[in-house]
């Protein structure tokens, strides 16, 4: 039972991450590989504030979102000067830079040693230290973010995003501020990712830089791609599928040392298969909007 709850918590964290990436990657067409970086910024902010300064969850959550948002604004103002392939490479660079800061700025992040002993979440005196209560809390955040994203993508702003991903120059000619819309969507998605980071830090109670590598970024991106880029429900299902798939390896009786690598190999294979299968469908993205 504990094991199932643990899996459900992980699924909800990954649903949060992949749905927030869906806003940039799916709707505005900006394939970002730096998403895990913002997740990591959230996790590290929450960990440092609660371990070193004993701040409560209700303070660390907004602060992490704020910091993550600030980093996202600074980064996107620069990286959005480029388009398409260059943007992917630049976000790859951002991911490398954020990881290098986590790994090397030992005065604050303790480098590769990580930060142990992160306390469990307490809201107004009520401790979320059992798995079932933590699951309910994370489901609460998932539903809020889902609701917000659903509304954002249906709002006029969401339609601007769809328009600019279809044809940037045309959207510009209609008087839409494309650059600003991209920055806003990138920032919102980074802030939502940091919520997942805060939950992760408090749940695992120990973080180190290896949880925030480029491989995880590719994993989140593959969830979004497998889920069909712009469909929040399908992305949630894809997240559940990809988190549960490697657990099947455990039942075959594969040793843990091999299972970690096999897990990533499976993601890679699934990703390539989906691209092969859907490469025709992705071509006309407008069909997603009309259907």
């Amino acid at each position: 039972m504990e094991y199932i709850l643990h899996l459900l918590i992980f699924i909800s964290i990954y649903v949060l991450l992949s749905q927030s990436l869906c806003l940039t990657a799916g709707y505005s067409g900006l394939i970002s590989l730096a998403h895990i970086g913002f997740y990591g910024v959230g996790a590290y902010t929450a960990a440092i504030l609660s371990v070193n300064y004993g701040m409560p969850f209700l303070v660390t959550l907004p602060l992490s979102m704020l910091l993550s948002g600030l980093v996202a604004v600074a980064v996107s103002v620069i990286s959005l000067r480029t388009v398409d392939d260059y943007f992917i490479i630049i976000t790859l660079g951002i991911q490398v830079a954020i990881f290098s800061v986590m790994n090397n700025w030992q005065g604050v992040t303790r480098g590769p040693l990580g930060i142990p002993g992160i306390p469990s979440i307490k809201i107004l005196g009520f401790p979320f230290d059992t798995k079932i209560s933590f699951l309910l809390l994370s489901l609460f955040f998932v539903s809020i973010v889902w609701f917000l994203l659903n509304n954002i993508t249906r709002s006029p702003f969401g339609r601007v995003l769809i328009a600019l991903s279809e044809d940037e120059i045309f959207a510009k000619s209609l008087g839409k501020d494309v650059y600003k819309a991209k920055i806003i969507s990138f920032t919102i998605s980074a802030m939502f990712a940091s919520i997942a980071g805060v939950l992760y830090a408090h749940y695992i109670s120990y973080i180190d830089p290896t949880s925030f590598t480029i491989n995880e970024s590719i994993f989140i991106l593959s969830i979004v791609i497998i889920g069909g880029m712009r469909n929040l429900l399908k992305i949630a299902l894809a997240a559940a599928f990809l988190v549960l798939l490697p657990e099947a390896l455990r039942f075959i009786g594969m040793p843990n040392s091999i299972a970690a690598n096999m897990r990533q190999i499976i993601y890679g294979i699934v990703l390539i298969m989906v691209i092969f299968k859907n490469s025709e469908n992705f071509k006309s993205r407008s069909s997603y909007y009309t259907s």
Partner: protein
Amino acid sequence: MPIQIILNIALQFSIISLVGISFLLIFNTGKYYAIHHSAIIALGGYFACLFYSHLGFSLPLSIIISIFLPTLIGLFIEILIFRNLRKRNNETFFLIIASLGVYIIMQNIISLFLGDDSKTIRIGEVQVGNEILGAYISNVQIIIIAASIILCGTTLLFLKFSKIGKYMRAVSSNEELSNIFGINSDHVILWSFGIGSALASIAGMLIAFDTDITPSTGFKILFYGVVAMIIGGVGSFKGLIGGALLLATAQHLSAYYIDSKWMDATAYIILILFLIWKPLGFSGKRLEKVEI
């Protein structure tokens, strides 16, 4: 010790430009960022380590095997995955994502079979390097610099004068038009994959002989190569060499004056500075759409 810094810069410069040229060959004809190329670099080092240190093959034989096998793997991936994807649609975005997937698979296969820890190849005993004006350089490092100069030069001459090289330049400037003139672009892309993979595996092998190699080494070096390519103006070989020189200099100066652990971050800062003030690199071609 300024001479020592200059030697270090020369070493880094030759590795970055060798990797960069091997990547740019593929990029120019295939038109996408082949991120799985980093796994080919790592494979070169790992095969050299496996055959020479563990299986006890002779040095020339293991060098030949560790150039030959990664090249075969590179060609196999191109034929199996990317050629088919290119036929299905021509958006480079899918090729990059597929290449990320291939990279993940290959990197994990390497760490599954050969382990995550760093591997070293030792030839004989550890020696004090040769002394040049108070600075030290080992024999392997001299070989790296020489090999890089020879290979880069040969590749540039090959592109300029040989038939296949001319075809490659034709395909990179306009694929459809070269198809009309009877050049089989799939064939040419396969050639550039072959040459690029061979150069990359040599680079990986040289790195493994000099320092040590981990499954993520290839990715780091490839990232430097891509940064050098972007700041040199994408698509230009001369720009790439200039970019590699600038990057290597900046990295080693920052390693000397600040700390060597910030070398990755330096590469990234240079990339940002170029994007702010010179988004087109300091030579040649334009980034599409940026100007519009």
